[in-house]
């Protein structure tokens, strides 16, 4: 992940910042320039709820180089309580603890280290509630 990209995405990775369409109320994470629901271009700043529900899950056992030392790790699609879906790791749990419908909360963690000399990449993960 090149550093400018990393810096640009910090509001989402660090603070879960999202956008709410002023016209139709649909939430977007990350924020967009055009509402995919109604085409409006005006948004209010908002935030993902810090808790959500597992919609599906898997254990990654073959990972790209940056994540190779972490396998196996759990990945889930989580719907936040205010209705936004994200792909995220679920940590501090056993594979058999994961189930569709279980509640999770977002936490701030290190994700990986970029290459040999790159920056440490932080962001959100989730834990079971």
């Amino acid at each position: 992940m090149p550093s400018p990209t990393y810096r640009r995405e910090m509001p989402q990775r660090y603070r879960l910042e999202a956008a709410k369409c002023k016209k139709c109320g649909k939430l977007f994470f990350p924020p967009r320039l055009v509402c995919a629901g109604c085409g409006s271009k005006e948004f209010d700043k908002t935030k993902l709820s810090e808790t959500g529900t597992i919609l599906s899950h898997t254990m990654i056992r073959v990972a790209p180089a940056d994540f190779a030392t972490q396998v196996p790790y759990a990945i889930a699609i989580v719907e936040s309580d205010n209705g936004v879906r994200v792909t995220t790791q679920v940590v501090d749990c056993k594979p058999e603890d994961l189930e569709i419908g279980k509640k999770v909360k977002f936490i701030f963690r290190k994700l990986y280290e970029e290459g040999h000399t790159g920056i440490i990449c932080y962001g959100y993960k989730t834990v079971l509630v």
Partner: protein
Amino acid sequence: MREVAVVGCGMTKFGELWEKSLRDIFVEAALKAIDDAGVDHIDSMYVGAMTPGLFVGQEHISALMADYLGIAPIPAMRVESACCSSGMALRLGLFEISSGYSDIVLVGGVEKMNDGADATYALATAADQEYEVYQGVTFPGLYALIARAHMHRYGTTREQLAAVSVKNHHNGTMNPNAQFQREVTLEQVMNATLVADPLTVLDSSPVSDGAACVVLTSVDFAKQLKVPSVKILGSGAATDTLALHNREDITTLKAVKLSGKAAYKMAGIKPSDIDVAEVHDCFSIAEICIIEELGFTEKGKGGPFTEQGNTALEGKIPVNPSGGLKSKGHPVGATGIAQVVEVVEQLRGNAGKRQVKNAKIGLTQNMGGSGGSSVVHIFTTT
């Protein structure tokens, strides 16, 4: 609008082609297709490839391939839509001839995935880099998320997923161009090494090298060539959210459904008219979802429909007689045109031991990423 025909096709064997380069495999497939068509020149060319830049460090392959095929200075363009790059390229070739702009167009696809690149990383660039890949998800991981949700909602079983791989490997034993020409059993698929739970390595298409090409002309021009040609009846393409998590329902491949609908409409036919189909079984669960979206069975019934043998070579609607991506191999950029090569050979009656009896109408469905793009074509005998 002129009607368009496929007049020639050719492909390399798919597999780990250590002794051949990216340019060599494309030229090999292209020469076979040109020879098969019996044309003396090419007006224009489209090459589908997902990411030769990441796989072998080579971009700008449109000019490279025209040069090495000895057909420069004709116009040539590379087309990219992840794993459906060459399916989309066919659409452009179709439009170019249909519009009357060119008379003879070569459309091909190529990928060289075994030259040492991190294939898991390269393939993952088809997903959302910032909001999926950044979290550590992989392509098998995305399809595993679809599989788990499909199993939870519709009761699809682990055995039903495995039945897709067993069927496609069986078909692959009859395809001399397939990467794996051997049978696998249900137990082998289910007990193989897990890649992303619940999917094992035998639910997954392999990392492959390969190329495939077809020659297109107008139907009228095809009559002068005196080769068995196949007419393109319909073409449809659609997109969906790039990130799987942004879809209303992660078990629905909306782009597949809409691309199919558009192709059926253009062809003026319905799903039950299809005699043979080549679909994008990059993972076992993908074939189950796709046959639902294309209307071969009801939503949620893809698992039992497969298990009951309806998609087998002798079944109600034979799916992936070539062995599919699973057994034939999946050099991502080449897959879309390789599907067309199979359907053309089926409609010509040239498919040997895997020939579907009385095949008159065939369909190809080629998909990008986790379903962010899809393209469907329908063909018929002339």
